[in-house]
């Protein structure tokens, strides 16, 4: 019956592509096109330049997802990128990669990408050729610049998003040659932070933080784990700073000050729920307490005015809380205060950022945990990307001043409030050009769309911080079905048609020209240096030393008080960047759409966060659809009650409500910007997102949220326990006492003591832990994992990494609503203590839950056909092709980590999105169970590679599952627990080690967790 068809389909999807590519891939290096000098690609891991079918080739490049510019390793198979990972040698990301970084791969193969240049004809687009398109653009530019042209003439305006330094320079040269204007716009801007740095220290780049070095970390609403300037780097810093040292029993303290707990906030040890917009006042109040009378240098007067009492008044918290925090901030040195950054773009945002800088300064953190680059320009951002600039551009466009508008890498028609008038102004421009890979709201308005290449197909460079440079190289031939061209190439081609020589024929050439000098820096010849740069994925050179900068007085008057908000609503609206979509530029990735939001655990659609007390007062429950009304607009959105938000505020994330961004983004959620006015903050020019109050009224209708959250209460079960820091030494003794001699049931009946093996004797009895019947007979490795909950930040990068590695399908909003999400790993989030009404302890537990690979797995014996069983290596294996689909195993899994293919979900994956599929992992059929396999394909790959080297055993660290690889917090360690020197064995020896539910149901999992460490007493669990 349908079986034959099914498996054949799957077979074609994976294998046949392999076969075709197996041939073309090998030959592909012979042909190269203009810029992609593919024959010069240099593999990093495999020294062989030839592509071997069936063997992965790795390339280094730079993630183009956001301005953080993390280093990337890209795994290609048969000339096709199948997985992106963090480059461990890159100083910014150090091997980690966030969810959005992983999801960039979906943009590469996005089915909504343009198949060629699109030329508007009336209401619709016609696909044209590149020659035609470039000719058209050149002609229109010439026509527009003709002074005689009064109908559709005007200057050339280039509206750009984030781009690397060389591209930025090229754009500048291109625009300059045409006497045009360039405006930069990013959906999420760091302008207030940048402006504050400029005011305070004369620095032209964002401050750099050494979060890992801090002992006391304060975040003034800054969501550095999920958004912020460099999420992977900062997340790693947080985990290093706050993770307990198991020897000294010390850990850093993290205090979050803000009206709403973002995922960053959920990691805090204490929460001071200050009133929205009061960050500046609180920071000054603390600084004032630290600096004392007359302290604070040029800001002494200001500090005088902001006593802790005034700050407490503004923030709606007790004055003792602020004084106490200030005292600790000064004494627990080095400390660090962050923010508020994009967490609070209100009308006094620059002042608030400045206040935090003053606080750091008076506490003596400048030069230790926070660094300002005062020497060079540095940073990737060229022009100011705030709202003020684009507002001027809008005015110019509206006045008919602009003849040709070129948009590149940004989507202002979506990411600006409707009130900005951008859309209308842009529509008035006689000729609009968009460099875009796939359709978005701005491209939809354009007259000409030039399909840009994905960063994995193009050349580029990055300079994420002074002294660090990395080349972005194409890792594969451009996806053949999309006739795309890198924007740099197109600009050069158009320039030459216009008769302007920018010094290079292709962007590759231009890029090399830009970096001629670094050969001199490293002292070798250029080609070798270039090759080396590509091989390592990063070039580090000594940055010019910046002297510790001195605080400077402001030239302009700033207001540090909480801002005035629009409207007379009783609730303050917090609009924040989405942890999944950023400002909306990632909304068309189904992986990210289906990634549960790290805070709310909701997928796909938008939700309004509201405190449960507020909801109770108004008779609003989770799932009720409410109308949110501001003076600038109104939206209908379902409510999610969240104790991590102040009672006088509601929050809405950006990134939803797209109208022209393709099949996965359109119609999903609402655009929070619709509620906002178009106001630029002064002096930075950033768009004000904390601008208005709203009223919330219940519509009386409701919906089931597409959430994966069942209950956020542990119900006193031994799931995610914690241990108080003060008890750490004692816990070990207790554990020993409690466990005593572990007994195990013999196959022949009766109990015998578990034999103690080499390793960590006397500690938690893991070495002898039951391992099915294989207990001691099997010689090989026994795979196990350790997850340190004190490190895990809940960022969810592992979830997307796993999805990318293991061909885990997405199921869509309706299916998630039904409870059928397919992720093999989920981050459970349990509230232990969250109280928005007072400052104090905060206890939220994140628990990455994946298959526990139990030694006594309850799922195994119930399977009637041995489709799941225990391998001699300690893995609970799932044999998809043997599965009949009784779902008994899932019922009997106490961890609920088994997911079922209710439909042939992979059928819904369109070409060429399925090119991303990992050829080493079976694509699962309708009606089979699946789950985490400990990345069995990676285990086998490591074994195969080890076997080729004279049959040596697999070394520790050779098998790195996708989740571990991706984890920015370094919370996950995998390895052979029989090897006493393996990292996992070392980690598991910790006294904090426990196994979820094990003491209750004796499942003997192979996944070991290390308890979270709290400062306060852990009361709720008896365990």
């Amino acid at each position: 019956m349908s079986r034959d068809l099914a498996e054949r389909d799957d077979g074609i999807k994976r294998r046949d592509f392999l076969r075709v590519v197996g041939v073309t891939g090998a030959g592909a290096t012979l042909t190269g096109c203009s810029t992609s000098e593919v024959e010069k690609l240099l593999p990093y891991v495999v020294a062989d330049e030839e592509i071997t079918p069936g063997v992965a080739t790795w390339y280094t490049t730079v993630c183009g997802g956001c301005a953080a510019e993390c280093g990337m390793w890209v795994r290609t198979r048969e000339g096709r990128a199948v997985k992106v990972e963090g480059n461990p040698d890159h100083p910014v990301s150090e091997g980690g990669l966030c969810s959005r970084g992983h999801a960039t791969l979906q943009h590469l193969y996005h089915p909504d990408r343009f198949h060629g240049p699109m030329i508007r004809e009336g209401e619709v687009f016609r696909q044209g050729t590149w020659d035609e398109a470039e000719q058209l653009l050149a002609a229109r530019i010439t026509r527009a610049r003709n002074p005689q042209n009064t109908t559709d003439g005007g200057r050339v305006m280039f509206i750009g998003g984030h781009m690397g330094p060389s591209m930025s320079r090229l754009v500048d040269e291109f625009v300059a040659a045409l006497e045009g204007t360039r405006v930069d716009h990013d959906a999420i801007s760091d302008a207030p932070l940048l402006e504050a740095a400029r005011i305070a220290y004369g620095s032209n780049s964002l401050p750099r933080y050494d979060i890992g070095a801090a002992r006391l970390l304060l975040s003034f609403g800054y969501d550095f784990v999920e958004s912020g300037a460099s999420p992977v780097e900062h997340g790693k810093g947080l985990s290093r700073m706050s993770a307990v040292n198991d020897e000294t029993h010390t850990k850093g303290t993290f205090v979050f000050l803000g009206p709403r707990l973002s995922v960053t906030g959920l990691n805090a040890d204490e929460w001071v729920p200050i009133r929205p917009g009061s960050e500046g006042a609180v920071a000054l109040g603390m600084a004032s307490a630290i600096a004392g009378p007359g302290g604070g240098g040029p800001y002494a007067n200001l500090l005088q005015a902001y006593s802790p009492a005034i700050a407490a008044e503004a923030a709606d918290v007790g004055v003792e809380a602020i004084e106490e925090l200030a005292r600790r901030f000064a004494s627990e040195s080095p400390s660090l205060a962050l923010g508020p950054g994009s967490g609070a773009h209100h009308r006094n945002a620059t002042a608030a950022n400045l206040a935090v800088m003053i606080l750091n300064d008076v506490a003596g953190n400048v030069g230790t945990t926070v660094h300002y680059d005062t020497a060079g320009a540095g940073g990737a951002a060229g022009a100011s990307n705030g709202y003020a600039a684009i507002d001027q551009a809008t005015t110019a466009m509206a006045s008919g001043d602009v003849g040709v508008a070129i948009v590149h890498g940004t989507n202002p028609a979506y990411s600006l409030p409707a009130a900005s008038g951008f859309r209308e102004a842009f529509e008035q421009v006689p000729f609009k050009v968009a460099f875009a890979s796939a359709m978005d709201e701005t491209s939809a308005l354009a007259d000409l769309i030039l399909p840009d290449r994905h960063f994995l197909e193009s050349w580029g460079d990055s300079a994420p911080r002074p002294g660090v440079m990395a080349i972005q190289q194409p890792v594969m031939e451009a996806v053949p079905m999309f006739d795309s061209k890198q924007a740099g190439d197109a600009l050069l081609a158009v320039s030459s048609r216009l008769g302007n020589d920018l010094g290079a024929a292709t962007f590759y050439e231009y890029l090399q020209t830009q970096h001629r000098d670094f050969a001199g820096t490293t002292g070798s010849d250029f080609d070798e240096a270039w090759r080396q740069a590509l091989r390592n994925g990063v070039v580090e050179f000594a940055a010019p030393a910046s002297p510790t900068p001195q605080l400077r007085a402001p030239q302009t008057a700033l207001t540090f008080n909480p801002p005035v908000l629009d409207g007379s609503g009783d609730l303050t609206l917090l609009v924040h960047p989405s942890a999944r979509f950023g400002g909306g530029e990632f909304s068309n990735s189904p992986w990210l759409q289906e990634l549960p939001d790290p805070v709310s655990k909701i997928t796909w659609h938008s939700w309004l966060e509201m405190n449960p007390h507020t909801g109770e007062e108004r008779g609003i429950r989770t799932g009720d659809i409410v109308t949110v009304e501001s003076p600038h607009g109104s939206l209908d959105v379902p409510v999610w009650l969240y104790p991590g938000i102040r009672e006088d505020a509601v929050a809405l994330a950006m990134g939803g409500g797209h109208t022209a961004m393709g099949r996965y983004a359109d119609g999903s959620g609402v655009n929070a910007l619709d509620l906002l006015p178009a106001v630029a903050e002064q002096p930075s020019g950033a768009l004000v997102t904390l601008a208005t109050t709203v009223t919330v009224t219940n519509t009386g209708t409701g919906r089931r949220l597409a959430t994966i959250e069942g209950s956020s209460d542990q119900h006193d079960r031994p799931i995610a326990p914690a241990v108080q820091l003060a008890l750490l030494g004692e816990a070990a003794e207790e554990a020993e006492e409690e466990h005593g001699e572990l007994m195990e049931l013999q196959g022949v009946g009766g109990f015998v003591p578990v034999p103690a093996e080499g390793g960590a004797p006397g500690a938690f009895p893991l070495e002898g832990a039951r391992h099915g019947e294989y207990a001691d007979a099997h010689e090989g490795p026994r795979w196990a994992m350790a997850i340190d909950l004190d490190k895990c930040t809940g960022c969810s990068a592992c979830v997307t990494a796993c999805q990318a590695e293991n061909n885990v399908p997405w199921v869509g909003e309706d299916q998630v609503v039904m409870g059928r999400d397919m992720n093999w790993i989920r981050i459970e989030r349990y509230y232990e203590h969250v109280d928005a009404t007072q400052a104090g302890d905060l206890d939220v537990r994140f628990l990455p839950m994946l298959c526990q690979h139990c030694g006594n797995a309850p799922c195994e014996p119930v399977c009637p056909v041995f489709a799941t069983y225990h391998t001699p290596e300690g893995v609970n294996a799932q044999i998809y092709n043997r599965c009949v689909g009784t779902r008994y195993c899932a019922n009997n899994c106490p961890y609920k980590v088994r997911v079922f293919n209710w439909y042939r979900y992979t059928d819904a994956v369109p070409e060429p999105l399925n090119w991303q599929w990992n050829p080493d992992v079976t694509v699962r059929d309708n009606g089979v169970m699946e789950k985490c396999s400990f990345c069995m394909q990676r285990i086998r790959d490591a074994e195969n590679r080890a076997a080729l080297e004279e049959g040596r055993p697999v070394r520790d660290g050779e098998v790195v599952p996708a989740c571990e690889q991706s984890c920015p917090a370094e919370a996950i360690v995998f390895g052979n627990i029989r090897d006493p020197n393996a990292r996992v064995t070392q980690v598991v020896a910790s006294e904090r080690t426990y196994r979820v539910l094990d003491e209750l149901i004796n499942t003997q999992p192979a996944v070991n967790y290390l308890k979270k460490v709290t400062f306060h007493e852990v009361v709720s669990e008896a365990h």
Partner: protein
Amino acid sequence: MSAGTGILASYEYLDSTVDAITGLRKAGFEVKAYAPYPDHHIEHALGYDQSPVRVWTLVGGLTGTATALAFTVWTSVDWPIVVGGKPIVSIPPYVIIMFELTVLFGALSTIIGLFVLSRLPNLKPSVIYDPEFTAGRYGVYVEADGARLDDARRILNDQEPIELREGQVAHA
């Protein structure tokens, strides 16, 4: 084998039937009786002992037990797969299979035994038969020749049958 005349008497009453059987058996006839329901008086009159069906049941049942034990153990050992940390050969769950196969084999062999012993299915039943036997009548059947036939007829007639049929029969 032998050919002869079969004679079949139909009775309305149980006691007449029993009397006829007793009479015929006293006279040394091989008697076959028909009844609409199993009646132990008739069986008693015919001198029945224990039915050998029970042997079939016992043998069948024990075969089932042994088969199940051997089969479950052999399949476990043939390709040992560890599930849930349980021993490869785990007798307690196999007891259930053993029980079920005991019952199954026992039941099936009982039926086979019944069929063999009472020569069922018999799609060509004897010609001399009164359809009223399945309704309310009792029947007595003897085969005899010559003078013996007359004896039989007389004994049968003594009990006032409703009907008496005769016919030539040939035994296979």
